[in-house]
Protein backbone atom coordinates (compact mmCIF):
# COMPACT_ATOMS: atom_id res chain seq x y z
CA UNK A 1 0.00 0.00 0.00
CA UNK A 2 1.45 3.32 -1.04
CA UNK A 3 1.45 6.16 1.45
CA UNK A 4 -0.46 9.13 0.13
CA UNK A 5 1.88 11.73 1.65
CA UNK A 6 3.64 13.94 -0.90
CA UNK A 7 5.48 17.19 -1.42
CA UNK A 8 3.01 19.99 -2.13
CA UNK A 9 3.55 21.42 -5.60
CA UNK A 10 0.45 23.18 -6.82
CA UNK A 11 -0.92 26.50 -5.65
CA UNK A 12 -4.12 25.14 -4.16
CA UNK A 13 -2.12 22.70 -2.04
CA UNK A 14 0.01 25.52 -0.65
CA UNK A 15 -3.17 27.53 -0.03
CA UNK A 16 -4.67 24.68 1.99
CA UNK A 17 -1.47 24.31 4.00
CA UNK A 18 -1.33 28.06 4.59
CA UNK A 19 -4.95 28.13 5.75
CA UNK A 20 -4.30 25.19 8.07
CA UNK A 21 -1.25 26.86 9.57
CA UNK A 22 -3.17 30.11 10.11
CA UNK A 23 -5.98 28.18 11.82
CA UNK A 24 -3.49 26.38 14.06
CA UNK A 25 -1.83 29.65 15.04
CA UNK A 26 -5.11 31.44 15.76
CA UNK A 27 -6.81 28.59 17.59
CA UNK A 28 -3.98 26.74 19.30
CA UNK A 29 -0.71 28.70 19.38
CA UNK A 30 -2.02 32.17 20.33
CA UNK A 31 -3.90 30.91 23.42
CA UNK A 32 -0.72 29.22 24.67
CA UNK A 33 1.36 32.33 24.10
CA UNK A 34 -1.29 34.43 25.83
CA UNK A 35 -1.29 32.24 28.96
CA UNK A 36 2.45 32.63 29.47
CA UNK A 37 2.49 36.32 28.53
CA UNK A 38 -0.21 37.02 31.11
CA UNK A 39 1.49 34.92 33.77
CA UNK A 40 4.76 36.80 33.28
CA UNK A 41 3.09 40.21 32.79
CA UNK A 42 3.61 41.31 36.39
CA UNK A 43 7.27 40.39 36.35
CA UNK A 44 9.12 37.42 37.77
CA UNK A 45 8.76 38.53 41.38
CA UNK A 46 4.97 38.64 41.24
CA UNK A 47 4.95 35.28 39.47
CA UNK A 48 7.09 33.82 42.23
CA UNK A 49 4.92 35.41 44.94
CA UNK A 50 1.78 34.00 43.30
CA UNK A 51 3.32 30.56 43.07
CA UNK A 52 4.18 30.67 46.75
CA UNK A 53 0.68 31.57 47.90
CA UNK A 54 -0.78 28.95 50.21
CA UNK A 55 -3.87 28.44 48.07
CA UNK A 56 -1.71 27.78 45.01
CA UNK A 57 0.40 25.16 46.77
CA UNK A 58 -2.67 23.57 48.26
CA UNK A 59 -4.51 23.42 44.95
CA UNK A 60 -1.45 21.93 43.26
CA UNK A 61 -1.22 19.27 45.98
CA UNK A 62 -4.89 18.36 45.71
CA UNK A 63 -4.70 18.20 41.91
CA UNK A 64 -1.71 15.86 42.08
CA UNK A 65 -3.46 13.73 44.71
CA UNK A 66 -6.50 13.36 42.47
CA UNK A 67 -4.34 12.25 39.54
CA UNK A 68 -2.16 9.92 41.61
CA UNK A 69 -5.20 8.09 43.00
CA UNK A 70 -7.30 8.10 39.82
CA UNK A 71 -4.74 6.74 37.36
CA UNK A 72 -3.94 3.42 39.16
CA UNK A 73 -7.62 2.72 39.87
CA UNK A 74 -8.59 3.13 36.25
CA UNK A 75 -5.46 1.32 35.11
CA UNK A 76 -6.57 -1.82 36.95
CA UNK A 77 -10.15 -1.44 35.71
CA UNK A 78 -9.06 -0.76 32.13
CA UNK A 79 -6.82 -3.83 31.98
CA UNK A 80 -9.42 -6.15 33.51
CA UNK A 81 -12.27 -4.91 31.33
CA UNK A 82 -10.19 -5.04 28.15
CA UNK A 83 -8.94 -8.54 29.05
CA UNK A 84 -12.48 -9.68 29.74
CA UNK A 85 -14.09 -8.43 26.52
CA UNK A 86 -11.22 -9.40 24.19
CA UNK A 87 -10.37 -12.86 25.56
CA UNK A 88 -13.84 -14.33 26.00
CA UNK A 89 -17.01 -14.27 23.96
CA UNK A 90 -20.03 -14.20 26.23
CA UNK A 91 -23.57 -12.96 26.47
CA UNK A 92 -23.63 -9.21 27.16
CA UNK A 93 -20.11 -8.53 25.93
CA UNK A 94 -21.16 -5.68 23.66
CA UNK A 95 -23.27 -4.22 26.44
CA UNK A 96 -20.21 -3.92 28.69
CA UNK A 97 -18.34 -2.13 25.89
CA UNK A 98 -21.23 0.31 25.46
CA UNK A 99 -21.74 0.91 29.19
CA UNK A 100 -18.15 1.98 29.66
CA UNK A 101 -18.72 4.74 27.07
CA UNK A 102 -21.34 6.44 29.23
CA UNK A 103 -18.89 8.79 31.01
CA UNK A 104 -17.74 10.04 27.58
CA UNK A 105 -21.23 11.14 26.68
CA UNK A 106 -22.32 12.39 30.10
CA UNK A 107 -21.93 16.09 30.73
CA UNK A 108 -19.43 16.48 33.59
CA UNK A 109 -21.81 18.68 35.58
CA UNK A 110 -24.49 15.99 35.36
CA UNK A 111 -21.93 13.38 36.45
CA UNK A 112 -20.98 15.43 39.48
CA UNK A 113 -24.64 15.95 40.33
CA UNK A 114 -25.35 12.19 40.12
CA UNK A 115 -22.67 11.60 42.74
CA UNK A 116 -24.15 14.35 44.87
CA UNK A 117 -27.52 12.60 44.75
CA UNK A 118 -26.04 9.31 45.97
CA UNK A 119 -23.50 10.45 48.53
CA UNK A 120 -24.82 13.87 49.47
CA UNK A 121 -27.33 14.50 52.22
CA UNK A 122 -30.25 14.02 49.84
CA UNK A 123 -29.58 10.33 49.32
CA UNK A 124 -30.04 7.28 51.55
CA UNK A 125 -26.39 6.29 51.36
CA UNK A 126 -25.34 9.87 52.02
CA UNK A 127 -27.56 10.11 55.12
CA UNK A 128 -26.23 6.82 56.42
CA UNK A 129 -22.66 7.99 55.89
CA UNK A 130 -23.47 11.27 57.60
CA UNK A 131 -24.70 9.39 60.66
CA UNK A 132 -21.36 7.56 60.65
CA UNK A 133 -19.63 10.95 60.41
CA UNK A 134 -18.18 10.24 56.98
CA UNK A 135 -18.29 13.16 54.60
CA UNK A 136 -17.52 12.38 50.96
CA UNK A 137 -19.15 15.30 49.17
CA UNK A 138 -17.73 18.83 49.46
CA UNK A 139 -14.50 17.17 50.55
CA UNK A 140 -11.51 15.64 48.75
CA UNK A 141 -12.86 12.04 48.50
CA UNK A 142 -15.76 13.32 46.40
CA UNK A 143 -13.32 15.00 44.04
CA UNK A 144 -11.47 11.71 43.57
CA UNK A 145 -14.74 9.80 43.03
CA UNK A 146 -16.05 12.02 40.25
CA UNK A 147 -12.62 12.17 38.64
CA UNK A 148 -12.57 8.36 38.57
CA UNK A 149 -15.99 8.41 36.89
CA UNK A 150 -15.02 10.94 34.24
CA UNK A 151 -11.75 9.17 33.33
CA UNK A 152 -13.06 5.58 33.55
CA UNK A 153 -13.31 4.85 29.79
CA UNK A 154 -9.94 6.06 28.51
CA UNK A 155 -7.56 3.19 29.31
CA UNK A 156 -10.13 0.52 28.47
CA UNK A 157 -10.91 2.22 25.14
CA UNK A 158 -7.22 2.38 24.22
CA UNK A 159 -6.51 -1.24 25.20
CA UNK A 160 -9.55 -2.92 23.67
CA UNK A 161 -8.76 -2.49 19.95
CA UNK A 162 -5.09 -3.34 20.53
CA UNK A 163 -5.80 -6.54 22.45
CA UNK A 164 -8.44 -7.49 19.90
CA UNK A 165 -5.90 -7.09 17.11
CA UNK A 166 -3.21 -9.06 18.91
CA UNK A 167 -5.54 -12.02 19.42
CA UNK A 168 -5.10 -14.76 21.99
CA UNK A 169 -2.72 -17.16 20.23
CA UNK A 170 0.31 -16.21 22.29
CA UNK A 171 -1.59 -16.55 25.55
CA UNK A 172 -3.04 -19.91 24.56
CA UNK A 173 0.43 -21.11 23.61
CA UNK A 174 1.69 -20.08 27.05
CA UNK A 175 -1.23 -21.88 28.69
CA UNK A 176 -0.49 -25.08 26.79
CA UNK A 177 3.10 -24.85 28.01
CA UNK A 178 1.78 -24.87 31.55
CA UNK A 179 1.88 -21.20 32.50
CA UNK A 180 -0.51 -19.98 35.20
CA UNK A 181 -2.92 -17.08 34.65
CA UNK A 182 -0.66 -14.55 36.37
CA UNK A 183 2.40 -15.77 34.49
CA UNK A 184 0.53 -15.37 31.21
CA UNK A 185 -0.48 -11.86 32.14
CA UNK A 186 2.91 -10.66 33.37
CA UNK A 187 5.10 -12.36 30.76
CA UNK A 188 2.93 -12.45 27.62
CA UNK A 189 0.12 -9.91 27.73
CA UNK A 190 1.73 -7.04 29.63
CA UNK A 191 4.87 -6.75 27.45
CA UNK A 192 2.61 -6.54 24.39
CA UNK A 193 0.43 -3.76 25.74
CA UNK A 194 2.85 -1.78 27.91
CA UNK A 195 3.18 1.20 25.58
CA UNK A 196 -0.54 1.47 25.05
CA UNK A 197 -0.96 1.22 28.80
CA UNK A 198 1.48 4.04 29.42
CA UNK A 199 -0.26 6.07 26.73
CA UNK A 200 -3.58 5.46 28.44
CA UNK A 201 -2.10 6.49 31.78
CA UNK A 202 -0.86 9.78 30.29
CA UNK A 203 -4.27 10.55 28.78
CA UNK A 204 -6.09 9.62 32.00
CA UNK A 205 -3.69 11.75 33.99
CA UNK A 206 -4.32 14.76 31.73
CA UNK A 207 -8.08 14.42 32.13
CA UNK A 208 -7.79 13.87 35.89
CA UNK A 209 -5.68 16.98 36.33
CA UNK A 210 -7.95 19.13 34.19
CA UNK A 211 -11.45 18.01 35.17
CA UNK A 212 -13.59 21.03 35.95
CA UNK A 213 -17.35 20.59 35.69
CA UNK A 214 -17.78 17.43 37.75
CA UNK A 215 -15.32 18.58 40.39
CA UNK A 216 -16.97 22.01 40.58
CA UNK A 217 -20.27 20.39 41.61
CA UNK A 218 -18.91 18.19 44.41
CA UNK A 219 -16.10 20.40 45.64
CA UNK A 220 -18.02 23.16 47.38
CA UNK A 221 -15.08 25.41 46.37
CA UNK A 222 -13.58 25.89 49.82
CA UNK A 223 -10.33 27.85 49.62
CA UNK A 224 -7.30 25.84 50.83
CA UNK A 225 -9.44 22.74 51.18
CA UNK A 226 -11.29 21.59 48.10
CA UNK A 227 -9.98 23.75 45.27
CA UNK A 228 -8.10 21.96 42.53
CA UNK A 229 -5.99 24.01 40.12
CA UNK A 230 -8.68 24.24 37.38
CA UNK A 231 -11.18 25.47 39.98
CA UNK A 232 -8.64 27.90 41.37
CA UNK A 233 -8.23 29.41 37.91
CA UNK A 234 -11.94 30.19 37.80
CA UNK A 235 -12.07 31.39 41.40
CA UNK A 236 -9.16 33.79 41.00
CA UNK A 237 -10.57 35.05 37.72
CA UNK A 238 -13.92 35.77 39.39
CA UNK A 239 -12.06 37.69 42.09
CA UNK A 240 -10.34 39.78 39.37
CA UNK A 241 -6.92 38.42 40.37
CA UNK A 242 -6.01 38.01 36.73
CA UNK A 243 -2.26 37.60 37.13
CA UNK A 244 -2.68 34.92 39.79
CA UNK A 245 -5.35 33.17 37.69
CA UNK A 246 -3.00 33.05 34.72
CA UNK A 247 -0.19 31.79 36.95
CA UNK A 248 -2.33 28.78 37.87
CA UNK A 249 -3.32 28.51 34.20
CA UNK A 250 0.35 28.51 33.18
CA UNK A 251 1.08 25.68 35.62
CA UNK A 252 -1.70 23.65 34.03
CA UNK A 253 -0.56 24.62 30.53
CA UNK A 254 2.92 23.29 31.36
CA UNK A 255 1.36 19.97 32.39
CA UNK A 256 -0.68 19.95 29.17
CA UNK A 257 2.45 20.57 27.08
CA UNK A 258 4.25 17.77 28.91
CA UNK A 259 1.30 15.51 28.09
CA UNK A 260 1.58 16.42 24.40
CA UNK A 261 5.33 15.74 24.36
CA UNK A 262 4.90 12.34 26.05
CA UNK A 263 2.01 11.45 23.76
CA UNK A 264 3.96 12.35 20.62
CA UNK A 265 7.01 10.43 21.83
CA UNK A 266 4.93 7.33 22.48
CA UNK A 267 3.22 7.57 19.11
CA UNK A 268 6.62 7.68 17.41
CA UNK A 269 7.66 4.60 19.34
CA UNK A 270 4.48 2.82 18.33
CA UNK A 271 5.07 3.71 14.67
CA UNK A 272 8.62 2.38 14.86
CA UNK A 273 7.40 -0.83 16.44
CA UNK A 274 4.86 -1.27 13.67
CA UNK A 275 7.51 -0.55 11.05
CA UNK A 276 9.86 -3.19 12.48
CA UNK A 277 7.72 -6.18 13.39
CA UNK A 278 10.73 -8.21 14.61
CA UNK A 279 11.28 -5.82 17.47
CA UNK A 280 7.83 -6.47 18.91
CA UNK A 281 8.86 -9.75 20.51
CA UNK A 282 12.21 -8.50 21.69
CA UNK A 283 10.87 -5.29 23.17
Amino acid at each position, binding site marked *: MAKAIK*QPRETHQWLLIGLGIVMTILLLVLPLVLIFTQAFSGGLELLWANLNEDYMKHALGLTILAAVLTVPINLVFGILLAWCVTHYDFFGRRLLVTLVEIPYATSPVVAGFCYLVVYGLEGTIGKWLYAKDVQLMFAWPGIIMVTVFVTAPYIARILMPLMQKQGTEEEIAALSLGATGWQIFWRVTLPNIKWALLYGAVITNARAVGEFGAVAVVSGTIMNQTLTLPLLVEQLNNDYKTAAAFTAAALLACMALLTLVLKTAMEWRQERREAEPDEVHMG
Partner: protein
Amino acid sequence: MFLQNRFAVTPHCPEPLNPAHIVNLSLRFFRSTPILPGFSMSFGFSTLYISLVILLPISALLLYVSGMSWDQYWFAITDARVLQSYKVTIQGAFYSTIIVTFIGFLLAWIVTRYDFPGRRLIDSLVDLPFALPTSVAGITLSALFIPSGWLGQWFEIFGIKISYAFPGIVVAMIFTSLPFIVRSVQPVLEDMEKELEEAALMLGANKWQIFWRVILPTLIPALITGSSQAFIRSLGEFGAVIMIAGNIPFETEVTSLMLFVRLQEYNYPAAAAIASVVLLASLILLFLLQVVQGRFFKKA
Protein backbone atom coordinates in the same frame (compact mmCIF):
# COMPACT_ATOMS: atom_id res chain seq x y z
CA MET B 1 -9.77 -27.95 19.53
CA PHE B 2 -7.35 -30.08 21.47
CA LEU B 3 -6.96 -27.40 24.10
CA GLN B 4 -10.67 -26.82 24.43
CA ASN B 5 -11.29 -30.50 25.08
CA ARG B 6 -8.52 -30.76 27.57
CA PHE B 7 -9.85 -27.76 29.45
CA ALA B 8 -13.37 -29.12 29.54
CA VAL B 9 -12.35 -32.52 30.89
CA THR B 10 -9.72 -31.59 33.45
CA PRO B 11 -9.80 -27.91 34.28
CA HIS B 12 -6.11 -27.21 34.65
CA CYS B 13 -6.95 -23.73 35.52
CA PRO B 14 -5.27 -22.10 38.54
CA GLU B 15 -8.38 -20.12 39.34
CA PRO B 16 -10.19 -21.73 42.26
CA LEU B 17 -13.42 -20.06 41.17
CA ASN B 18 -13.52 -21.70 37.78
CA PRO B 19 -14.81 -25.23 38.32
CA ALA B 20 -16.87 -27.36 36.00
CA HIS B 21 -20.21 -25.71 36.67
CA ILE B 22 -19.09 -22.63 34.75
CA VAL B 23 -18.34 -24.88 31.80
CA ASN B 24 -21.84 -26.32 32.03
CA LEU B 25 -23.33 -22.88 32.28
CA SER B 26 -21.30 -21.91 29.24
CA LEU B 27 -23.86 -23.59 27.01
CA ARG B 28 -26.03 -20.54 27.51
CA PHE B 29 -23.74 -17.78 28.73
CA PHE B 30 -20.57 -18.26 26.68
CA ARG B 31 -20.70 -18.02 22.93
CA SER B 32 -17.41 -19.93 22.77
CA THR B 33 -15.83 -21.96 25.55
CA PRO B 34 -13.39 -19.82 27.54
CA ILE B 35 -9.88 -21.18 27.20
CA LEU B 36 -7.81 -18.72 29.17
CA PRO B 37 -8.08 -18.45 32.94
CA GLY B 38 -9.14 -15.27 34.67
CA PHE B 39 -12.67 -14.88 33.41
CA SER B 40 -14.39 -14.75 36.77
CA MET B 41 -11.92 -12.25 38.15
CA SER B 42 -11.89 -9.87 35.18
CA PHE B 43 -15.62 -10.17 34.52
CA GLY B 44 -16.52 -9.90 38.19
CA PHE B 45 -14.37 -6.87 38.82
CA SER B 46 -15.38 -5.07 35.62
CA THR B 47 -19.10 -5.50 36.16
CA LEU B 48 -18.85 -4.54 39.83
CA TYR B 49 -16.82 -1.46 38.91
CA ILE B 50 -19.17 -0.40 36.12
CA SER B 51 -22.16 -0.92 38.43
CA LEU B 52 -20.72 1.05 41.31
CA VAL B 53 -18.90 3.83 39.47
CA ILE B 54 -21.13 4.37 36.44
CA LEU B 55 -24.57 2.79 36.85
CA LEU B 56 -25.30 3.45 40.53
CA PRO B 57 -24.97 7.26 40.38
CA ILE B 58 -26.88 7.49 37.11
CA SER B 59 -29.75 5.32 38.27
CA ALA B 60 -29.80 7.23 41.56
CA LEU B 61 -30.47 10.41 39.61
CA LEU B 62 -33.30 8.79 37.66
CA LEU B 63 -34.72 7.35 40.86
CA TYR B 64 -34.59 10.75 42.54
CA VAL B 65 -36.41 12.31 39.60
CA SER B 66 -39.05 9.56 39.60
CA GLY B 67 -39.95 10.61 43.13
CA MET B 68 -41.07 14.02 41.87
CA SER B 69 -44.61 14.74 40.77
CA TRP B 70 -45.14 15.20 37.05
CA ASP B 71 -46.21 18.83 37.45
CA GLN B 72 -43.18 19.64 39.53
CA TYR B 73 -40.91 17.96 36.98
CA TRP B 74 -42.57 19.62 34.00
CA PHE B 75 -42.43 23.01 35.69
CA ALA B 76 -38.68 22.63 36.39
CA ILE B 77 -37.73 21.60 32.86
CA THR B 78 -39.96 24.07 31.01
CA ASP B 79 -39.12 27.16 33.02
CA ALA B 80 -38.67 30.00 30.51
CA ARG B 81 -35.05 30.58 31.49
CA VAL B 82 -34.28 26.86 31.19
CA LEU B 83 -36.02 26.61 27.82
CA GLN B 84 -33.92 29.47 26.56
CA SER B 85 -30.77 27.68 27.81
CA TYR B 86 -31.65 24.58 25.75
CA LYS B 87 -31.91 26.80 22.71
CA VAL B 88 -28.57 28.52 23.38
CA THR B 89 -26.81 25.19 24.03
CA ILE B 90 -28.18 23.42 20.97
CA GLN B 91 -27.55 26.39 18.69
CA GLY B 92 -24.01 26.79 20.00
CA ALA B 93 -23.29 23.09 19.61
CA PHE B 94 -24.81 23.08 16.12
CA TYR B 95 -22.84 26.04 14.74
CA SER B 96 -19.61 25.00 16.42
CA THR B 97 -19.91 21.43 15.11
CA ILE B 98 -20.33 22.65 11.54
CA ILE B 99 -17.37 25.03 11.78
CA VAL B 100 -15.12 22.60 13.64
CA THR B 101 -15.88 19.86 11.12
CA PHE B 102 -14.41 22.04 8.36
CA ILE B 103 -11.39 23.16 10.39
CA GLY B 104 -10.73 19.66 11.69
CA PHE B 105 -11.05 18.17 8.23
CA LEU B 106 -8.63 20.74 6.82
CA LEU B 107 -6.04 20.03 9.55
CA ALA B 108 -6.39 16.25 9.21
CA TRP B 109 -6.08 16.59 5.44
CA ILE B 110 -2.90 18.67 5.38
CA VAL B 111 -1.06 16.65 8.04
CA THR B 112 -1.78 13.33 6.34
CA ARG B 113 -1.43 14.37 2.68
CA TYR B 114 1.33 16.94 2.44
CA ASP B 115 4.86 17.07 3.71
CA PHE B 116 5.67 20.58 4.89
CA PRO B 117 7.70 22.19 7.67
CA GLY B 118 5.72 22.19 10.91
CA ARG B 119 3.58 19.20 9.97
CA ARG B 120 4.60 17.18 13.03
CA LEU B 121 4.07 20.20 15.28
CA ILE B 122 0.52 20.78 14.05
CA ASP B 123 -0.18 17.07 14.44
CA SER B 124 0.89 17.21 18.10
CA LEU B 125 -0.79 20.54 18.87
CA VAL B 126 -4.17 19.26 17.73
CA ASP B 127 -4.47 17.45 21.07
CA LEU B 128 -3.93 20.64 23.06
CA PRO B 129 -7.65 21.26 23.66
CA PHE B 130 -7.87 17.76 25.07
CA ALA B 131 -4.86 18.16 27.36
CA LEU B 132 -5.59 21.71 28.48
CA PRO B 133 -8.13 21.99 31.33
CA THR B 134 -11.37 23.54 30.11
CA SER B 135 -11.26 26.37 32.64
CA VAL B 136 -7.83 27.36 31.33
CA ALA B 137 -9.19 27.26 27.79
CA GLY B 138 -12.11 29.43 28.86
CA ILE B 139 -10.11 32.12 30.64
CA THR B 140 -7.60 32.24 27.77
CA LEU B 141 -10.08 32.39 24.89
CA SER B 142 -12.06 35.00 26.75
CA ALA B 143 -8.94 37.18 27.19
CA LEU B 144 -8.09 36.63 23.52
CA PHE B 145 -11.50 37.73 22.25
CA ILE B 146 -12.38 40.68 24.52
CA PRO B 147 -12.61 43.95 22.54
CA SER B 148 -9.10 44.92 23.62
CA GLY B 149 -7.73 41.38 23.16
CA TRP B 150 -5.27 40.19 20.53
CA LEU B 151 -8.02 38.78 18.31
CA GLY B 152 -11.04 40.63 19.70
CA GLN B 153 -9.74 44.02 18.47
CA TRP B 154 -10.11 42.89 14.85
CA PHE B 155 -13.71 41.87 15.39
CA GLU B 156 -14.33 45.09 17.33
CA ILE B 157 -13.72 47.06 14.10
CA PHE B 158 -16.78 45.38 12.60
CA GLY B 159 -18.72 45.79 15.83
CA ILE B 160 -18.74 42.05 16.51
CA LYS B 161 -18.66 41.08 20.15
CA ILE B 162 -17.29 37.60 20.87
CA SER B 163 -16.34 37.32 24.53
CA TYR B 164 -19.31 37.66 26.88
CA ALA B 165 -21.73 37.08 24.00
CA PHE B 166 -23.15 34.15 22.04
CA PRO B 167 -20.23 33.88 19.53
CA GLY B 168 -17.96 33.28 22.53
CA ILE B 169 -19.88 30.10 23.33
CA VAL B 170 -19.35 28.92 19.75
CA VAL B 171 -15.62 29.73 19.90
CA ALA B 172 -15.20 27.81 23.19
CA MET B 173 -17.05 24.81 21.78
CA ILE B 174 -14.98 24.87 18.58
CA PHE B 175 -11.79 24.84 20.63
CA THR B 176 -12.76 21.97 22.93
CA SER B 177 -14.13 19.70 20.20
CA LEU B 178 -11.38 20.15 17.60
CA PRO B 179 -9.42 16.95 18.48
CA PHE B 180 -12.50 14.75 18.05
CA ILE B 181 -12.84 15.56 14.34
CA VAL B 182 -9.13 15.41 13.50
CA ARG B 183 -8.54 12.15 15.36
CA SER B 184 -11.55 10.45 13.74
CA VAL B 185 -10.74 11.48 10.19
CA GLN B 186 -6.95 11.16 10.31
CA PRO B 187 -6.61 7.34 10.57
CA VAL B 188 -9.01 6.82 7.67
CA LEU B 189 -7.10 9.32 5.52
CA GLU B 190 -3.84 7.61 6.44
CA ASP B 191 -5.10 4.16 5.49
CA MET B 192 -6.65 5.32 2.25
CA GLU B 193 -4.99 3.55 -0.60
CA LYS B 194 -3.38 5.74 -3.16
CA GLU B 195 -4.09 3.11 -5.81
CA LEU B 196 -7.78 3.93 -5.56
CA GLU B 197 -7.19 7.56 -6.52
CA GLU B 198 -4.73 6.57 -9.24
CA ALA B 199 -7.29 4.20 -10.72
CA ALA B 200 -9.86 7.01 -10.77
CA LEU B 201 -7.31 9.28 -12.43
CA MET B 202 -6.57 6.65 -15.06
CA LEU B 203 -10.27 6.34 -15.79
CA GLY B 204 -10.30 10.05 -16.57
CA ALA B 205 -11.68 11.56 -13.38
CA ASN B 206 -10.59 15.09 -12.56
CA LYS B 207 -9.44 16.27 -9.12
CA TRP B 208 -12.91 17.38 -7.99
CA GLN B 209 -14.51 14.16 -9.13
CA ILE B 210 -11.86 12.15 -7.27
CA PHE B 211 -12.49 14.17 -4.12
CA TRP B 212 -16.28 14.03 -4.26
CA ARG B 213 -16.72 10.50 -5.59
CA VAL B 214 -13.73 8.58 -4.21
CA ILE B 215 -12.28 10.30 -1.15
CA LEU B 216 -15.32 11.86 0.52
CA PRO B 217 -17.57 8.76 0.50
CA THR B 218 -14.81 6.79 2.26
CA LEU B 219 -14.55 9.49 4.90
CA ILE B 220 -18.27 9.92 5.63
CA PRO B 221 -18.44 7.36 8.49
CA ALA B 222 -15.42 8.90 10.20
CA LEU B 223 -16.81 12.40 9.70
CA ILE B 224 -20.16 11.37 11.18
CA THR B 225 -18.46 9.76 14.17
CA GLY B 226 -16.22 12.77 14.72
CA SER B 227 -18.95 15.39 14.38
CA SER B 228 -21.32 13.46 16.62
CA GLN B 229 -18.66 13.21 19.30
CA ALA B 230 -17.96 16.92 18.88
CA PHE B 231 -21.68 17.72 19.14
CA ILE B 232 -22.22 15.57 22.25
CA ARG B 233 -19.13 17.08 23.85
CA SER B 234 -20.31 20.62 23.04
CA LEU B 235 -23.76 19.99 24.52
CA GLY B 236 -22.16 19.11 27.85
CA GLU B 237 -19.32 21.62 27.79
CA PHE B 238 -19.18 23.68 30.95
CA GLY B 239 -15.78 25.02 32.03
CA ALA B 240 -14.72 26.70 28.81
CA VAL B 241 -18.18 28.05 28.02
CA ILE B 242 -19.07 29.65 31.35
CA MET B 243 -15.83 31.61 31.43
CA ILE B 244 -16.35 33.22 28.02
CA ALA B 245 -20.15 33.40 27.75
CA GLY B 246 -20.83 36.17 30.25
CA ASN B 247 -23.78 34.06 31.48
CA ILE B 248 -26.49 36.62 30.92
CA PRO B 249 -29.89 35.06 31.83
CA PHE B 250 -32.10 34.42 28.78
CA GLU B 251 -29.18 35.20 26.46
CA THR B 252 -25.95 33.32 27.05
CA GLU B 253 -26.72 30.73 29.69
CA VAL B 254 -26.09 27.11 28.68
CA THR B 255 -28.01 24.20 30.18
CA SER B 256 -25.10 22.86 32.26
CA LEU B 257 -24.90 26.30 33.87
CA MET B 258 -28.65 26.30 34.62
CA LEU B 259 -28.15 23.02 36.45
CA PHE B 260 -25.30 24.60 38.40
CA VAL B 261 -27.38 27.69 39.20
CA ARG B 262 -30.24 25.55 40.56
CA LEU B 263 -27.72 23.69 42.71
CA GLN B 264 -26.41 26.89 44.17
CA GLU B 265 -29.99 27.88 44.97
CA TYR B 266 -30.22 24.52 46.82
CA ASN B 267 -33.13 23.67 44.55
CA TYR B 268 -32.17 20.00 44.20
CA PRO B 269 -35.39 18.75 42.58
CA ALA B 270 -35.16 21.34 39.80
CA ALA B 271 -31.46 20.58 39.32
CA ALA B 272 -32.23 16.87 39.14
CA ALA B 273 -34.97 17.45 36.58
CA ILE B 274 -32.65 19.45 34.33
CA ALA B 275 -29.85 16.92 34.83
CA SER B 276 -32.17 14.09 33.80
CA VAL B 277 -33.05 15.91 30.56
CA VAL B 278 -29.36 16.44 29.72
CA LEU B 279 -28.49 12.87 30.69
CA LEU B 280 -31.27 11.29 28.62
CA ALA B 281 -30.41 13.47 25.62
CA SER B 282 -26.75 12.45 25.73
CA LEU B 283 -27.55 8.76 26.30
CA ILE B 284 -29.94 8.77 23.33
CA LEU B 285 -27.31 10.45 21.17
CA LEU B 286 -24.70 7.91 22.30
CA PHE B 287 -27.07 5.06 21.47
CA LEU B 288 -27.93 6.53 18.04
CA LEU B 289 -24.23 6.94 17.29
CA GLN B 290 -23.60 3.28 18.15
CA VAL B 291 -26.45 2.18 15.86
CA VAL B 292 -25.25 4.37 12.98
CA GLN B 293 -21.66 3.18 13.44
CA GLY B 294 -22.83 -0.44 13.42
CA ARG B 295 -24.59 0.17 10.10
CA PHE B 296 -21.62 1.81 8.43
CA PHE B 297 -19.04 -0.63 9.73
CA LYS B 298 -21.10 -3.58 8.55
CA LYS B 299 -21.33 -2.10 5.07
CA ALA B 300 -17.59 -1.49 4.99
